[in-house]
C-alpha cells in the first residue's frame, strides 16, 4: 500500500500576496494550501506527490472572508463554508450558498474548507462549485504578470483540468446579484445524510413569467468529468412553456449531456436515472400548478 511520508513535504508561509505570487512564479512544485481539507485526504491515502505547500492562511490581503461591492459578493480565497453559512445577508441574497455549505462534510470541514479550494480541487463531486456556477461566479486569477477573470462555467476543460497556469493563484470569487423572483432548487444525493461524498447533485434556478420560462440555470455534480452546466437542457427550457412536453424534452436533452461512470461510490445507471428524476422534481416544483 503506497503511503506518503511527511519527510517528502515542506511549507512556505508568506505574509503578503506579492510574496506568495513570487514564490509561485519562481519555485518548483509549489501547491497552494488553504483549509487543507482535500490535501489532508490525498496525503493520508498516499496519493499526494512530494511537493512544497504554499500556506495561504497567513496572507494579510485574504483575511476578510468576503465583501460587498456594487451589489456583487466578493469572496476571498480563504472564505470558508462556515463564513457564508452563518451570514444573514448571504443567506438572503444567495440562499443556495447556504444550502450547499450545510451539506459539505460536517461542521469541522465547513469551518476549515474554502470555496476557492473547492474550485481548484476540481472534483467532479464538488459540493460548492455547482451553486457558484448557478450564480454565474467569476474566478479571479493573479500572477506576477497580472490579473484576469474567468467565468467559472468555462473554467474546467476536462477531469482535473482547469484554465489556470501553474503560477496563477485564485485571489477571489465574484458573484453578480442573481435575478429577482427566481425559483431555486438544490438537491445533493449522497449515501447518507451527513459527511458523505455526492453521488449525484442537481441545482439551478428558473425564472418564469406566467407559464413561460424566461431564463434558467441547471448545474450537475458527479455526472461528468467536472461540474457540469447543462447548457443544452437550459436552451430547451429557455423560452418554452413549462409543461409536460417541455419537461420530457429537457429530460432527453439532459441524458445527452451527462456522461456518468461506474465507480466505487455508485453506478452510471443509477446516476443517469437519478439525475433525470431530480430535473423532473425541480421542473415540477417550478411549474405553475405547484405555486
Amino acid at each position: 500500500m503506497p503511503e506518503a511520508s511527511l519527510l517528502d513535504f515542506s511549507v512556505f508561509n508568506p505574509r503578503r500576496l506579492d510574496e506568495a505570487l513570487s514564490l509561485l512564479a519562481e519555485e518548483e512544485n509549489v501547491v497552494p494550501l488553504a483549509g487543507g481539507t482535500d490535501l489532508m485526504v490525498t496525503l493520508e491515502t498516499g496519493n499526494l506527490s512530494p511537493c512544497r505547500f504554499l500556506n495561504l492562511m497567513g496572507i494579510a490581503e485574504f483575511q476578510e472572508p468576503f465583501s460587498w461591492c456594487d451589489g456583487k459578493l466578493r469572496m476571498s480565497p480563504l472564505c470558508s463554508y462556515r463564513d457564508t453559512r452563518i451570514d444573514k445577508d448571504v443567506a438572503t441574497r444567495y440562499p443556495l450558498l447556504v444550502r450547499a455549505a450545510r451539506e459539505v462534510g460536517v461542521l469541522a470541514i465547513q469551518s476549515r474548507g474554502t470555496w476557492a479550494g473547492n474550485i481548484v480541487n476540481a472534483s467532479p463531486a464538488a459540493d460548492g462549485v455547482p451553486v457558484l456556477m448557478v450564480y454565474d461566479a467569476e474566478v479571479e486569477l493573479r500572477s506576477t504578470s497580472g490579473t484576469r477573470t474567468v467565468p467559472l462555467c468555462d473554467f474546467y476543460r476536462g477531469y482535473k483540468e482547469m484554465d489556470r497556469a501553474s503560477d496563477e493563484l485564485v485571489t477571489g470569487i465574484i458573484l453578480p446579484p442573481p435575478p429577482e423572483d427566481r425559483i431555486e432548487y438544490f438537491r445533493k444525493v449522497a449515501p447518507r445524510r451527513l459527511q458523505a461524498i455526492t453521488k449525484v447533485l442537481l441545482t439551478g434556478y428558473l425564472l418564469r413569467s406566467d407559464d413561460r420560462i424566461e431564463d434558467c440555470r441547471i448545474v450537475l455534480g458527479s455526472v461528468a468529468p467536472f461540474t457540469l452546466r447543462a447548457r443544452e437542457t437550459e436552451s430547451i427550457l429557455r423560452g418554452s412553456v413549462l409543461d409536460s412536453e417541455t419537461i420530457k424534452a429537457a429530460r432527453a436533452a439532459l441524458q445527452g449531456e451527462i456522461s456518468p461512470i461506474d465507480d466505487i461510490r455508485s453506478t452510471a445507471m443509477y446516476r443517469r436515472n437519478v439525475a433525470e428524476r431530480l430535473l423532473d422534481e425541480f421542473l415540477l416544483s417550478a411549474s405553475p400548478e405547484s405555486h
Partner: protein
Amino acid sequence: MNTKETLEPVESEEAPPIIGENLPRPEGIRKVCGTALYADDLKFDSCLFGRTVRSPAPRGRVRHIAFGEGIPWDEFVIVLPDDIPGENAVTLIEKSQPFLATSVRHIGEPVALIAHHDRALLNKALKAITVEIDEEPAIFSIEEALEGKEIQYGRDNIFKEYRITRGKLEEAFSEADHVLEGVYETGAQEQLYIEPQGVIARADPKGEVTIWGSIQCPFYVQKALAPLFALSPEKVRVIQTETGGGFGGKEEYPNLLSGHAALLSYRAGGAVVRMIYDRREDLFVTPKRHPSRTRIKSAFRKDGTFLGLEVDFVLDGGAYPTLSSTVLSRGILHSFGPYRIPHADLRARVVFTNSTPYGAFRGFGAPQSIFALELHLDRVAHELGLDPAELRRRNFVKKGDTFPTGQVIKEEIDLALLMDTALKKADYARKRKAYEEENRKNPRVKRGISLSVFFHGSGFTGSGEVMLGSKAAVRLLKDGSVEVLSANVEFGQGTNAMFTQITAAILGIPPEWVRIHQPDTAVVPNSGPTVASRTTMIVGRLVERAARRLRERVLEEGGLSQGYTGEEFRETAKRLAAREEFREEAQYVPPPDVHWDEQRYQGEAYSGYSWSCDVADVEVDMTTFQAEVKHFVSVVECGTVVNPIIAAGQIEGGIAQSIGYALYEDVHTERGVMVNNQYTNYIIPTTADIPSIEVSFIRFPLCNYGPFAAKGIGELPADGPAPAVAAAVAHALGYRYINKIPLLPERIAAVVLEEEETAA
C-alpha cells in the same frame, strides 16, 4: 476446592435492589475525560515501530522480496519466515494461517516484517519493498468454490459442513398446500471499532513475551504465541489495555498482530515494538462478517401451519479456517427461528476462497441465517394472504415444543406476548394498512412496515463451555474492598458495571468497594474469551458463585454474622486480607439437563436463549431510491436486566449497526480484498440516518442458569433488524422483494427500473 457441584437454574425475584439499577460505568469517567490509556497511549522509554510487508497477489509462491535502494536497511529490524523460532502458524481452533507466508492465499497476506524507531522512514522503507510472487489462479466467490475450482483446502474447498435433520421432509412437501423457494444473500460487514487494531510487544530472547493490546481474548493470544516462540503458555503474558470497541473484530486478529510485534521485538533483542494500524490498513486486512448465500425451501398449509423447512446455508470463509467452523455452527443453529417445524433438513457449509479471511462479528453467523429465514417468512405470508405477524403467531414455539436440534423448550416463553408488545408500540396494524393506501396515491414516497422475531443463544455452542471450563475469582484487598478477577474485557459493552453489580449484590456492599482487575494473564484466571454473548450469563454466574464462596468464608473466618452492615464487612475484609491472600474461585459447571451430541448435531445447543421482536418502519424516496428507517421498535426478553441503561444502549447500538448492515454498509472487494477501505467510502449510518429507536424489556417467568437469571444480549440486536428492514422495504415497494443486502439505492433502482421497463 471444586467439590462436586450441581448448577441450579435461577428462578427468582429475590435479587437485591442493585441488580436492575443503572450503575454508572466504572470506567466511564476516565473514558470521557481522556485519561483512559489505550494501547497507543502507553509510554515506553524507547520503542520501535513495526510494519507488515504484504502480498500483492491473491495466490502463489513468494519468489523474492526485493529491498529497494535508498534506504539504510542495516538500521532496520527485518523478520522473514525463516527467522521464526517456533511454529509458523496461528493456533486457534485448528492451525490457521502462517504468521508469515512463503506461499500466499490472499492479497495483503503478511510475508515479512520491518521495524525502525523513525516512523516516517519506516513508511518510506515499506514503499521501497517489492514482493515478487509466482502467481497462480485464484477464486473469489462462493459459486467458484462450490464448483470445485482451484481446490486449495481439503478435497473440495469446504472448511466445514454440518447437517441437522428432523422428521421426514418429503412428507412435509407432499402434505403442503404451499411451497416456496428463495435464495438470500448478505454481504460482508466491517466491525469499524473506533480504535483500530493495535498491540505493543516485548519478547525477551531469554524466553519471556509480554503483550499489551486492544484485545477481546487475552488467553487466545497466549495460546497463539506460546507455540510461535516454543514457550510454555505462562511465559507469555498478555495484558489488555483499554479497548475502543471490538464487536468480534478483536477476537482473533490480535493473535496474528501480537505475533508480528513479538517477532520483531524478539529479533530486535527484546526492544519494545509497537504495531498500531491506521484505519486504511485495518480495513484492508482484518476479518469481517462472512458473506452468505442461503437457499430456503419451505412447506406450509394454507392456514399458515409450518410443515417443513429445507435450508442450504453457505458462508464464504476466505483463505484460512480461522473461526469459520464455529461461525457456521451458530449460523445453522439459528437458521430455523422460534417456530414449531415438524420436518427439517438443514445443511451448512463454509467454503474456501482467496479472500481475506472472514471472522467474528457480533451475531457470528446468526444474522446471515436469520436474515434469510425471516425475509422468506415475510414472502410466505404475502403469498398465503396472511399478515406476516399472523403467520408467525400461528407457529411460535412454546414450552414443551422441540427445535429441529431436538432441544425441548423448558422455559415458559410467550412469543405472542413479546410480538404483540412490539406491534402495539410500533402502531403496526394501523400503519401497515394506512401505508398501503398512501402508497397508492403517492408516487414520490413509499412507506412500509414489517417485523422479525428471533432468538440468540447465550454462551458457547454445544459442549463449548464444558471444554472451556472457565474460571473466575474474587478476592479481598487490603483496604477492605473486593476485586473481581476475570479475563473478560470491557470494550464498551458494560462488563465492568455488570460484574460490579453482581459482586456488590452478593456481598451486600456498596458498588464503590468493588474493583475490577484489568485482564492480565499473569494475574487473572482464564474465564474464557469475551465473545458469544457469554460474559453476563456464563462468566457473570462464575463471579456470582465465587462471591458467594467468598462471603461464606468471610462470615466463617471473620466471625461476621448474617445481616452485617457494609462497614462491618469492610472492617472484617481488611483484617482478613492483611493475614493472607483471601481469594475464592468458581469454575464452570454445566447445567444438569444440558447435553450436546457433536456428531449428530442434536441436543441443547445453548443453555439459555434471549428472545426479541423488531419492527422497522421505513420510507423509500422514489426520486433517489434511498430507503431510510424512520422508526424502530425492539422488544427484548433476556431474563433479568442487570443494568437497564447499559443494556438498552447496547441494543440501540446493535440496531444502528444492523441498519447499516441492511441499508448502507457495502464492503467493496476486488480480487478478494476491500478496496473502499476508508471512512469516506465505507458508509456506515451516522446519527442523522438513524431513527428514534424504542427499546423495551419484558420478562418471561424466570428460569435459567444466568446470575440472578440474567441472559446475554450482546449479539441479539445484530440478528433481527436486517430482515425487518428488508421486509419493510418490500412492503413499501408493493411486495417487490429484494433478497440481497445491503439494500443500496443502486440495487433498489435496478429492481424498480427493470419493472418500469417491463411495464412500459
